[in-house]
């Protein structure tokens, strides 16, 4: 009772990275809260699935295994979660901010009348005082996220409603094995008690799921462009530089919205979070929602003709210049001097 839950997503029998990242974060939050970390897995053919989850620190794995529960469909999955939560009364529930978590989370929060915060970039435990009522709440979950297009950072709490729910994008938290020999309990749920026939009203006719070809998270070098790159043509310069020095091309939201680059390359709060050893920010002004997704890069180079661009403050090198001017020079030097 009153534990911390992580909803684990499954694709082809594999627990997704974002769920493992949340288990890692959930483990440390549960230690602070002195409660158990519990995982919920909903799908089919889940025998042995706990072996992927318990090493990340889960004390209990609730498994809802039924042929009808894969692939994901909103109503049956939310029924499992809603009914289980009514029994278990968790204090916190974390979900990936994926197309599954962002579909399931709000449905469940509405049914339980519990607060949900989307796309958190940090989660902490702390106290909260409601000054008007003179009431102090101990050990709440601080759900921290950039808001308002990334111009401010908001700290959100859910003082009275449980569970406190939050979604987090892939890559925001770090995945770390807790203990390879951690002991956890497996609880198999009697699915028929949790879902009803009327939950199966949406039929999946076709499904084409492909792993994204772009792997920004794994690339040691990222050349990212913002609105200041100016055009789709200029973005090709970034492609050239990335191809030359062995990196991937990323983009800010403004560049994606302007059609310079694809959504799968978006870095930031509503895109991917990256930690490369070199991040070259080209024509990126540096709104907090972008910074949130790249500030842990080891070395940051900012190429910008606006000396006041906020991103320059967190850059190790600032080049005052335009992308058209600077990038060809970088390529030229590298081609001449690399072995």
């Amino acid at each position, binding site marked *: 009772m009153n534990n911390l839950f992580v909803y684990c997503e499954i694709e082809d029998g594999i627990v997704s990275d974002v769920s493992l990242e949340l288990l890692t974060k959930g483990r440390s939050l549960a230690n602070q809260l002195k409660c158990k970390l519990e995982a919920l897995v909903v799908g089919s053919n889940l025998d042995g699935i706990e072996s992927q989850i318990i090493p990340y620190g889960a004390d209990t794995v609730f498994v809802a295994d039924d042929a009808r529960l894969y692939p994901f469909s909103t109503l049956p999955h939310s029924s499992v979660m809603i009914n289980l939560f009514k029994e278990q009364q968790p204090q916190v529930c974390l979900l990936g901010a994926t197309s599954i978590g962002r579909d399931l989370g*709000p449905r469940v*929060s509405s049914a339980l009348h519990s607060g949900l915060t989307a*796309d958190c970039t940090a989660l902490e435990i702390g106290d909260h005082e409601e000054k008007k009522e003179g009431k102090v709440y101990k050990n709440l979950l601080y759900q921290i996220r950039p808001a308002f297009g990334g111009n401010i950072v908001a700290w959100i709490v859910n003082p009275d409603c449980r569970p406190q729910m939050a979604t987090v994008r892939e890559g925001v938290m770090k995945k770390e094995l807790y203990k390879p020999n951690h002991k956890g309990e497996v609880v198999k749920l009697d699915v028929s008690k949790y879902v009803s026939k009327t939950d199966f009203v949406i039929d999946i006719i076709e499904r084409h799921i492909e792993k994204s070809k772009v792997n920004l998270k794994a690339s040691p070098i990222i050349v990212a462009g913002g609105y200041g790159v100016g055009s789709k043509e200029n973005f090709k310069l970034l492609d050239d530089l990335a191809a030359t020095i062995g990196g991937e091309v990323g983009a800010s939201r403004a560049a994606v919205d302007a059609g310079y680059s694809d959504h799968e390359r978006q870095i930031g709060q509503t895109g991917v979070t990256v930690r490369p050893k070199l991040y070259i920010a080209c024509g990126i002004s540096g709104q907090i929602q972008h910074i949130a997704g790249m500030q842990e890069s080891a070395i940051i180079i900012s190429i910008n003709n606006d000396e006041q661009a906020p991103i320059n403050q967190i850059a190790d090198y600032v080049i005052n210049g335009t992308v058209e001017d600077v990038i060809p020079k970088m390529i030229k030097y590298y081609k001449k001097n690399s072995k």
Partner: protein
Amino acid sequence: MSLKIIVLAKQVPDTRNVGKDAMKADGTVNRAALPAIFNPEDLNALEQALQLKENNPGSTIHLLTMGPGRAAEIIREGLYRGADGGVLLTDRAFAGADTLATSYALACAIRKMGAYDVIICGRQAIDGDTAQVGPQVAEKLGIPQITYAEEVQTVKGGKLRVKRRLESGVEVVEGKMPLLLTVNGSADDCRPRNAKRVMKYKYAKTITEKQNANVDYTDMFDSRPYLNLVEWGVADVNADLVQVGLSGSPTKVKKIENVVFQAKENLVLSSSDLDIDHLMFELIENHTIG
């Protein structure tokens, strides 16, 4: 078959074009400096509704928007592009609502609007990016949701077949109406305003707008009743005051921080050949690249 369609739309500050004066010195948002626009993905939603209407003669589209008085602009914009009518849900009591209190209020208004087959809204609004209100409205109404919709492929036997655009692929699903769709930005762009409809509806006003106008519109609105835009408050939709606005919101904002970056000591370079060559030399030497 003809469909009764409701489109949920929101007026949002244009956070994509935030200028330098968008933040006040004290770190709060200067809303006055941001233009108010039709939430982009709600326009994609409206377009899906208009296509459904074209393909299913006799269908009707009504917009529902919640916001301050000026959000009546959203209803007019919808009328200009082909909607049949709309409702502005406005009341001081709605202020400060989080997504759950918002979806409660919208669900109350939808019940009041009467029977419907499809509710269509954008996946998310650009001022919050939460993507929560659509699914929460569906839950409150007890109907299924299809999120991330990109295209309604067919309407047959009371069922909608919908293509969904997910982060890792596409899915085609089918469900029986009534249901709620949230539409992705990758769906068709909304058609522009229709000039004749702009002429027809440009004086359409809510009751508050009429009261605040300096001109007496009584005769015009008597002869052209379609110019009357519906405006509802908490009492009109039989909403429970405790469940709307700030008091109906489980989430509370503990604090808002202006963004302060931890400034690093940095090296500022020019774009001269010399500076770039030095930088590249250093990056290759210390094995950052190459």
